[in-house]
């Protein structure tokens, strides 16, 4: 194994740690814009991983996927979300139902939990344990953000983090799916965020607030 391949492998192994750091920071973030930036950084870490894989395996498909991640997740979606925030002119508070300290504590617990969850699979299938744990942690963290933050935009961000988790799971297990499928998934993601943005505006116009915990007309 050459030196560069070794470096790429090392980067891949340590990237899980960076992902955990973004999660902990997201838990303590108080403003929506901070979370968007953190999401962008998270996606950039993923892109770096894919680039490392692409370099090591000399696969053109992996380069294509990396460029998709960079254009869609690192640039397009955060830009779209920032545009929405700007034209909403609403308060930037994430409206958390747990305090900052509690959130960080819960997030740390979720990260630990994900290590326990993947241990049996990582051993039998000989997969990278850290990265697989990062994938599960992202899934859980996304779900946690969605249920503990009341702002509609934070639910979108929670969903994006959850989706990142699935993406990291692909990286940790099979490196990549067939390219056509990846492109389709990215297209769906982009359209989904676009539509959710549309609904955020509609919620603001019809309800005059963005607190989804107050959307409770339809029950039973």
């Amino acid at each position: 194994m050459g030196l560069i391949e070794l470096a790429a492998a090392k980067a891949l192994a340590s990237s899980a740690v960076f992902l955990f750091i973004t999660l902990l920071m997201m838990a303590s973030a108080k403003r929506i814009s901070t979370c968007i930036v953190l999401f962008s950084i998270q996606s950039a870490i993923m892109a770096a991983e894919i680039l490392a894989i692409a370099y090591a395996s000399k696969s053109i498909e992996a380069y294509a996927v990396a460029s998709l991640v960079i254009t869609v997740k690192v640039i397009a979606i955060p830009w779209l979300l920032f545009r929405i925030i700007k034209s909403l002119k609403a308060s930037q508070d994430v409206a958390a139902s747990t305090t900052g300290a509690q959130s960080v504590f819960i997030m740390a617990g979720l990260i630990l939990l994900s290590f326990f969850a993947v241990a049996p699979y990582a051993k039998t299938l000989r997969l990278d344990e850290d990265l697989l744990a990062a994938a599960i942690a992202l899934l859980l963290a996304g779900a946690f953000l969605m249920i503990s933050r009341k702002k509609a935009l934070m639910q979108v961000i929670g969903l994006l983090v959850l989706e990142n988790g699935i993406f990291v799971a692909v990286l940790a297990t099979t490196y990549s799916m067939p390219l056509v499928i990846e492109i389709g998934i990215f297209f769906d993601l982009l359209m989904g965020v676009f539509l959710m943005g549309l609904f955020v505006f509609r919620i603001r116009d019809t309800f005059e607030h963005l607190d989804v915990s107050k959307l409770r007309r339809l029950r039973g």
Partner: protein
Amino acid sequence: MSLVLLLLVPFLTALIVLTCKQSRRAVAVAISAGALEIAAIANAMWRIRSVGVLQFGRYLRADGLTAFFLLNIGVILALVLVYSVGYLRHIPLGRFSSPRWFYSLTFLFVFTMIAVYLSANLGMLWICVESTTLASALLVGFYNTKGAVEAGWKYLVVCTVGIAFALFGTIALYLAAVKSGVDPASALDWAVLMNAAPSLTATSNLIKLSFVFIAVGYGTKIGFVPMHSWLPDAHAEAPTPISAMLSAVLLNCALYALLRFDTITSHAIGSGFSHSLLLIFGCLSVAVAALLMVVQRDLKRLLAYSSIEHMGIVAIGVGLGGPLALFGALLHTFNHSVAKSLMFFTAGYVRENFSTLRMRRIHGMARLLPWTSAGMVVGGIAIAGLPPFGLFISEFMILTAAFGTSRYFIAILLMLAISVVFGALLHHVQRMLAGKPVDLPVAKPKLLPTDFAVMGVCAVFLIVLGVHIPGAFANILQSALVVLK
């Protein structure tokens, strides 16, 4: 080539109809495109019958199961399009809520659902199921009222999260296939996976994990309890033709995805695991939905819970396994589609005349709207599962299979739930039909000939399927069963 045509017609129609500024022209375009699409479906079904499997390129494929579900979407599309002619009187001319937007989004929705049926690849299947959510979310929020926006948002978020779990399940299955030596480039293709399924036993834990995620993910979209929270809201707030589409086609569409995965899982690790999971979801859905139907106050929400109950019955049928139960389950999806469309159509007329769907405020319907009431009685008896309508036959098949395999607990639970549902429907419907007629808030609009046509066709379908299953239809069902074997 006939497969490409199936996709091309609705997609182009969605674009063309947007250019029609006059609503009369939009209706004309939509109806003729609908007729074209139904002809394309008939053509594809004919070719599937003679060739067996149609394949176009690597990503489009149609077999017997596809043909059965295409028939379902064709029938309901025809009914919904004809019904919409009368329904369009409701639609106010807003910026995005005009007839042309309605038709454009509807055809986009149909396009994504047909794409689900034609996917040869499980990854593409996921992409298409997710697109159905995206295409229909705007339709659910079409009226832009508080309720509609809330329902649309909930639908979008809940289903996208659910479907994300299904993606995770798909990846787990992909991993299992790749680890067992299937070529990564084709490890998501349905045909390749079916061939390789028996050799996947080494990774049985991973396949179980994958099926749990798939059942939760696509189960969200089917409306299994406890992931059903989006379903009553979306059905109640969507325009009525779309409620019928959601209930009669979309739920079946998600069920189709689950059936594909269930077949692969059964081939790989035996049917015990996946079928017991389906039985659990089915029993939960049937029991909870039946009880919730008793306390409903809104007519369309009542119908939505009834859809959850019927999807539960179908899940039980699939979970029981064996040719009789599976035949019953597939037949039930079709019967339920027709009966539920009829019920939603009558609910639309009720809304039009009484300006409300609160069942407490509706009285004396039998005298005020005799024909609508007749439709509602037929539909109500049908969805309660009584003879002489089709749902009785299919429920009876599933029950027979349950007793035949000595699953007494499930059989008794199913019978109890069906009785509760019957009681709930009787209670709600007779309260609306009987009593002193209320003063109608608006002048009574006359039923159009098209309205009579759709209600009549639904009733005829239900009675014919309740008396005798035509040979051609039974053949379509049999060739669908061959795929699932």
